[in-house]
């Protein structure tokens, strides 16, 4: 039973297969039972057959003794052939009785069927009985003698003839042969042995078949387990034996299912981790690069100031100082916003039910001065959802998005910002729409990257939208931008899974 394993290599055949062991044990058990049964049958049959023979012989003796002796008295001397006929008739009725002797109580043998004379007148045998037989012949009860002494496997029944008036003169000795019985017994024994052997053979074959059927699910279990070991969890076993093996197979399937789920979860986590790792790497790189940039500016202009003084170009001093000041402000803003960004992932205020409508109005109130200065009108559409989340962070999201819309209002004569929501496949989509500069679809992904600034002329550090993305994602939501391109305005949209 070489099971080719899924990997292609041939499965190692166990040194002692369960199937062979089961078949062997089963066959051995059946053999033991059958052999014991056969032995008992054979041995007891011999005894039973002997007893039956002895009983029937005794019965025969009891019935035949009277007629035999009467016939002996009546015809032996006068009509020998008639007597002979009687003897033959009687003997033919009992095939196991091979010899009949009529003896008298004196120990003389008066007639011996072995010496039947074919002539008309009989010849009297001259033999005399030995003491054992003589004693038997004198008894008034029938006596059974085992004639092992004589060496032949025969039985002798000596039956007395008690005449009507009570005189016991004659006895008849019947010699019963075991020959026929033994022949029958041997046939019986042979048949029994043959039958037993056949039964054992059948039992072995049935055992082998049964063991195969029992072990077939085991083979499929082995296959399945091997596939699992090779991390192929799609395998399910179809064992419908209705017994413990089915239970094992069901447990196996359950295990495979869980392993599959675990692996899926593990792979998801790995992907998540890889994504986070890449993000972190990008973050570190971006930070080191972007913090170095103002440093180059500061140091560069400080060194230039020296030169300015040395060469007496005082008119440059003020401009250079201004650049240094601006660069340090940029650096400070960068550091502050980075700190802010790093907090988003860690410090989460306890989530609560937050009405985005209230939040939008709060954000507008906070930005009141800037909105007034830029002459931007903000409209809050009715129907903004109530969400479950961090109130302060979500306020930052709306504030940043509105601020961003204000920054990129461009030269729009009537800048309008609209905050609203619309139904989406995963719950309501909240949007902040403006009629400002718009964004080329090529940059829709990049706008959310850290320090990404599409227009270097507009002030800012490029952290705002990265912060928005981070907050929305920490809440399990998604954020994206919709814009048909430059000059078409843009809508920043986000979903929050906890949105009701």
């Amino acid at each position, binding site marked *: 039973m070489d099971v080719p394993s899924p990997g292609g290599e041939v499965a190692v055949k166990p040194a002692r297969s369960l199937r062979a062991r089961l078949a062997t044990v089963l066959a051995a058990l059946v053999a033991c039972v059958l052999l014991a049964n056969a032995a008992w049958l054979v041995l007891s049959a011999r005894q039973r057959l002997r007893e039956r023979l002895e009983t029937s012989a005794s019965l025969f003796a009891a019935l035949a003794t009277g007629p035999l002796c009467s016939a002996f008295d009546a015809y032996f001397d006068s009509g020998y052939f008639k007597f002979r006929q009687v003897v033959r008739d009687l003997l033919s009725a009992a095939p196991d009785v091979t010899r009949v002797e009529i003896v008298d109580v004196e120990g003389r043998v008066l007639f011996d069927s072995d010496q039947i004379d074919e002539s008309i007148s009989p010849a009297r045998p001259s033999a005399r009985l030995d003491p054992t037989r003589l004693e038997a012949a004198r008894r008034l009860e029938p006596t059974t003698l085992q004639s092992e002494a004589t060496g032949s496997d025969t039985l002798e029944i000596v039956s007395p003839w008690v005449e009507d008036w009570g005189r016991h003169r004659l006895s008849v000795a019947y010699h019963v042969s075991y020959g026929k019985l033994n022949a029958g017994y041997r046939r019986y024994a042979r048949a029994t042995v043959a039958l037993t052997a056949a039964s054992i053979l059948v039992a072995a074959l049935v055992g082998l078949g049964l063991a195969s059927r029992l072990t077939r699910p085991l083979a499929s279990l082995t296959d399945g387990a091997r596939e699992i070991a090779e991390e192929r969890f799609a395998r399910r076993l179809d064992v419908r034996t209705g017994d413990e093996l089915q239970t094992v197979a069901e447990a196996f399937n359950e295990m495979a299912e869980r392993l599959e789920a675990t692996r899926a979860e593990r792979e998801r986590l790995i992907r998540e981790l890889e994504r986070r790792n890449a993000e972190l790497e990008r973050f570190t*790189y*971006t930070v*080191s*690069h*972007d913090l*170095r*940039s*103002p*440093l*180059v*500016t500061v*140091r*560069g*202009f*400080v*060194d*230039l100031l020296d*030169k300015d003084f040395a060469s007496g170009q005082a008119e440059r001093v003020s401009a250079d100082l201004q*650049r240094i000041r*601006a*660069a340090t402000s940029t650096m400070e803003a960068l550091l502050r916003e980075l700190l802010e960004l790093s907090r988003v992932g860690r410090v989460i205020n306890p989530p609560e039910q937050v009405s985005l409508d209230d939040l939008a109005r709060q954000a507008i109130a906070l930005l009141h001065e800037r909105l007034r200065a830029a002459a931007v009108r903000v409209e809050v559409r009715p129907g903004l959802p109530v969400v479950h989340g961090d109130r302060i962070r979500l306020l930052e999201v709306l504030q940043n998005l509105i601020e961003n819309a204000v920054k990129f209002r461009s030269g729009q004569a009537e800048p309008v910002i609209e905050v609203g929501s619309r139904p989406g496949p995963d719950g309501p989509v909240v949007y902040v729409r403006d009629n400002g500069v718009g964004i*080329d679809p*090529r*940059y829709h992904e*990049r706008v959310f990257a850290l*320090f*990404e*600034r*599409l*227009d*270097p*002329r507009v002030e800012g550090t490029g952290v705002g939208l990265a912060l928005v993305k981070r907050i929305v994602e920490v809440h399990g939501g998604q954020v994206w931008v919709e814009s048909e391109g430059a000059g078409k305005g843009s809508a920043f949209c986000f979903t929050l899974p906890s949105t009701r």
Partner: protein
Amino acid sequence: MGEQESLPVLLVEDNPDHEELIRRAFADRGVRVSISVARHGEEALDYLFRRGIYEDARRSPRPRLILLDLRLPRVDGLEVLSRIKSSAALQAIPTVVLTTSESEHDVARACAEHANSYLVKPVDFARFEDLIVHVDSYWLTLNRQPGDGGGRSRS
């Protein structure tokens, strides 16, 4: 060749302060160049491929040298580099990456995109000036490129 001629250089730099530092470094060491500035990757590509406002060739003379920052708005510096080096008309122009990034990753990627040189902006301004002088003497003076009679030569 006597009087030094003003060679065209394209500076792709989003930071106006750094632009000023580079201009001063050239000026202070007496190197005469005519610098055109592109503020982001897209503008650099527009300039080089003569699109949009740079359609007129007089506004976009072929630079003898491109100084390229890597982190740029819109189109990233590496993307600009890749487009330059895959263009038959532009690939011969020496393109020197001049950035604040010291990241191994950036160096490797810039080399893979066939940058002619990778230079990190020094914080110290004297060293910044030295760097600019070296760039000038190597790429604008010693280096020859096809299609011109050589750069300026110092006797």
